[in-house]
């Protein structure tokens, strides 16, 4: 591989890893948001249950 081949591989790998990690975080947030929306809400507080 030429000098530029190694350089391009290094810069390309940097973008690949950083974007892949950003995508991984995005997927985790989206999944957690969806799960949270499906779960029943917190039980009503004492004030909310007052007549």
């Amino acid at each position, binding site marked *: 591989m030429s000098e530029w081949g190694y350089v391009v591989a290094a810069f390309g790998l940097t973008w690949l890893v*950083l974007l892949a990690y950003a995508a991984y975080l995005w997927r985790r947030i989206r999944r957690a948001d969806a799960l949270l929306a499906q779960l029943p809400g917190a039980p009503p507080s004492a004030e909310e249950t007052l007549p």
Partner: protein
Amino acid sequence: MNGSTMAPPLPGVGSPGGFETASPRGRSVREWLNGPGLGWLALIALAGAQAFGLLATPADRDMGHLQKIMYVHVPAAWAALVAFFLVFVWSVLYLWRRSARYDGLAVAAAEAGVVFTALTLTLGSLWGRPTWGVWWTWDPRLTTTAILLLIYAGYLALRAFTDEPDRRARWSAAVGVLGFLNVPIVYMSVRWWRTLHQVQSTPDTLEPTFAWGLRLNAIAFLLLLAYFIVRRRRVAQLERRIDARLESAALAGG
């Protein structure tokens, strides 16, 4: 084009924020961190800094164009060391205050640090093959960095295998403090044991154009580190809320 209608620069950058506290007095720093601003800034800074490093800096006298790998390898290493320093600080704060907030921040920094360390080692390998003739050697700098990666991978594994939140936070904070002991060893390894890996360059030993390439890329990597910590902390917050809801539901049901 209006910023609010643009596609996010990085996945999830425009989604609801990582910090739940909103200032009623307009756009606070936290709101800015939660919005697309940090992601856009990191992306633009990275693209600009890499373009500068690739196109505006001359070839090195000894290494030729291979020297340009420095603009990604060194900033990735710096970002990793900063991340582990933050793990140390937030772990100490957790042990002192026992606040889940610091635990969430520590794990966010640890995970980002592992990503940057793995990247550093891989980029070093790509640089080492044409300059040293090998993909890997047991040079003290490489070895101590690999140990650093294992320590913080172990930190993340420990968290994955511990269910009880308080115990998980306490144990991982202890690892976060003790694991940091290796960071100064990594940094000083090139001075204590002079082998293949070169010692740190300084602005005095670098051509000014090279130094600027390094500075700009370091800023871009630190912005990315901040972005990753904000997003990963958001994951930790959501997971805590899910655990709390499940616990409430179980108590209500039982």
